């Protein structure tokens, strides 16, 4: 089979799942004739019709809320947000209505909210966000953030089949920059399982999404210096794979957490707390974080480059841990 991009992998998942289950439908802004701002849904409306690929008004509250209502009735809605940054407009609907539906009302709410996320593309403060930390805090939501094309496909398929709401973050920097051959058959990647992106013995990097690639770059560089780095790609942020996290900590005893999101209140804090609780005795060094600086993300290249974590930062941090 041919290699396809991360973006094409997502599209493939949508086609396959809509084919598989007539209850799956898509809704969002400009996803129909136009095929979405990034063309993820290109061809979808032509194949499945206007009823199953719905162009909506500019109404994130309504997109998410209507998805919830349809989900209650047994449909499987997949919402596209034009940029994930606009998920903030539906924050109430997601955290209060959707996330609690099963618990407070025994209403199933199987739905997916997906959208282009992340920076490194000169998108500025409102087209580069990483919203995971804002939702990590809400019981009832699941969250995945794939870093490879095959995970993007497999996790989206899993998300669509999940019985609860899954936030599916797509890294727009990766959309067309990475390619991969898809595993044959019905490729579903289970939610909640991390992936060892690279094996190593000296220092563990725990990361997800675009910074997986920067971590791998750093690891390759560090190998030359004789430092063996293990890279864990979390893939799922909620639920988090404690087992995989603990396993790598026990193996290397040194942990660097890398995320693209801002530092304070980011996901790294939660990971640190869990390691602390589950494997404190195995730590030979403090857990360090390489993250964005705590500012809204500027778009001018020198500024964006300075704010977001870069490979050199990871290298530097791993060196410090290795020498600790």
């Amino acid at each position, binding site marked *: 089979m041919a290699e396809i991009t991360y973006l094409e992998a997502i599209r493939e998942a949508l086609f396959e799942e809509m084919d598989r289950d007539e209850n799956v439908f898509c809704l969002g802004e400009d996803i129909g004739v136009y095929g979405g701002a990034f063309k993820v849904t290109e061809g979808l409306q032509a194949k499945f019709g206007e009823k*199953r690929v719905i162009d909506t008004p500019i109404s994130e509250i309504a997109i998410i809320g209507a998805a919830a209502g349809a989900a*209650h009735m047994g449909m499987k809605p997949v919402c596209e947000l034009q940029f994930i940054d606009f998920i903030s407009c539906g924050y109430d609907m997601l955290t209060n209505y959707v996330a609690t539906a099963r*618990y407070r009302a*025994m209403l199933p709410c199987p739905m997916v909210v997906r959208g282009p996320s992340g920076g490194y593309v000169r998108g500025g403060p409102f087209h580069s966000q990483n919203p995971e930390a804002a939702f990590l805090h809400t019981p009832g939501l699941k969250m995945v953030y794939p870093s490879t094309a095959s995970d993007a496909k497999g996790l989206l398929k899993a998300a669509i089949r999940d019985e609860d709401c899954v936030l599916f973050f797509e890294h727009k920097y990766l959309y067309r920059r990475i390619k991969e051959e898809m595993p044959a058959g019905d490729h579903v990647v289970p939610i909640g399982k991390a992936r060892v992106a690279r094996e190593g013995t000296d220092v563990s990097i725990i990361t997800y999404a675009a910074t997986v690639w920067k971590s791998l770059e750093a690891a390759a560089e560090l190998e030359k210096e004789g430092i063996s780095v293990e890279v864990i790609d979390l893939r799922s942020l909620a639920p988090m794979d404690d087992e995989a996290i603990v396993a790598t900590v026990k193996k290397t005893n040194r942990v660097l957490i890398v995320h693209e999101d801002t530092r304070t209140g980011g996901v790294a804090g939660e990971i640190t707390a869990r390691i602390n609780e589950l494997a404190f005795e195995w730590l030979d060094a403090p857990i360090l974080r390489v993250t964005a600086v705590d500012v809204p993300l500027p778009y001018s290249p020198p500024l964006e480059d300075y704010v977001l974590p870069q490979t050199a930062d990871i290298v530097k941090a791993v060196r410090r841990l290795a020498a600790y």
Partner: protein
Amino acid sequence: MKQSTAADARSSASMSRNRSTSGLSREQMLELYYYMRLTRSLEERLVNLYRQTKVVGGLFRSLGQEADAVGSAYALDRSKGDILSPLIRNMGSMLVQGATPLEVIRQYMARGDSPTRGRELNIHFGDLVRGFIGQISHLGDMVPVMAGVTLSFKMRGEDRVGLVYVGDGATSTGAFHEGINFAAVQRCPLVVVVENNGYAYSTPLSKQTAARELKDKAVGYGIAAEQADGNDVIATYEATKRAVDRARSGGGVTLVELITYRRKGHAEHDNQSYVPPGEIDKWEKTNDPIDRYIQVLSKDFAVDKTELESIDSRVKSEIDDATDEAEKSPMPEPKDALVGVYADPPEEKPLWFREGVRAAVEVNERPASWGTHDG
């Protein structure tokens, strides 16, 4: 007996020939009375329970608004699977859809066998099978949700209609706006009932909107509008019925403004100091929906006192029974709190410092929709 009787009465009534101008049979007319009386009496019972501190949380009344909730809900067709989403003053609409006094009392008393098993307050509960979806507190949010419910009816070609209630206050929310607009564009079979009861908590309509009438909002969404005297149960029924028929026949969304008045405070603790003197009295004396309906029933339909009294006593005994039953209900077991955030995992782990607290919900006791999708 109880609510099943009511449901039976309703379906048998629909076969009757004796129709009023509104198309309602005499039996249906009496059923409307029954539901209004049940609403009022049940809330009065809740007041007693509240004063006995048996109610957990606030108590919300619909005194004087029973006609609008009951009359509008009555315009739906349960046999077709119509679904509504009530607001805090629409207990009457839930009763029409088959909610029972026992459920309501258990829920207000936070019991373990209440519809939400002690999770959510007051009348925040629902049942898809009987056709009502529980609201959440965040006003306006049910409008997009019901847009989605009715979108699914349309997508599947089902002959069903949805109805969502919002207060005058909730029309100011972004969620209301986005939801009604979305439904309008999609021509969802949705009826949006705006209950204009003059106040949102202490805020009078004039501080909520500069619009002269709430029904004026319809044109901005390109949808039909109806307006009715919400204290006239028949008028309410008729206006909503037109909207329901329009929705069912593919005519899309209707905004139905029902004009009524909130005679009690926002909740039981509110002393209504902000209401101009005499206003409440006037509505009570001259415009009580039940009093008005009794007039109609006796004048135009020759319903006599004893007939109504027998309904009243049926209502009373239903509520008495429900109260007794609810008092016997257990409080939830602590560990029930862990169940059902997700289908998978079906249960949270107890935090380590809580190990040893008694577990109550066993896997086999779990309602179907906790942990599976066929609920």
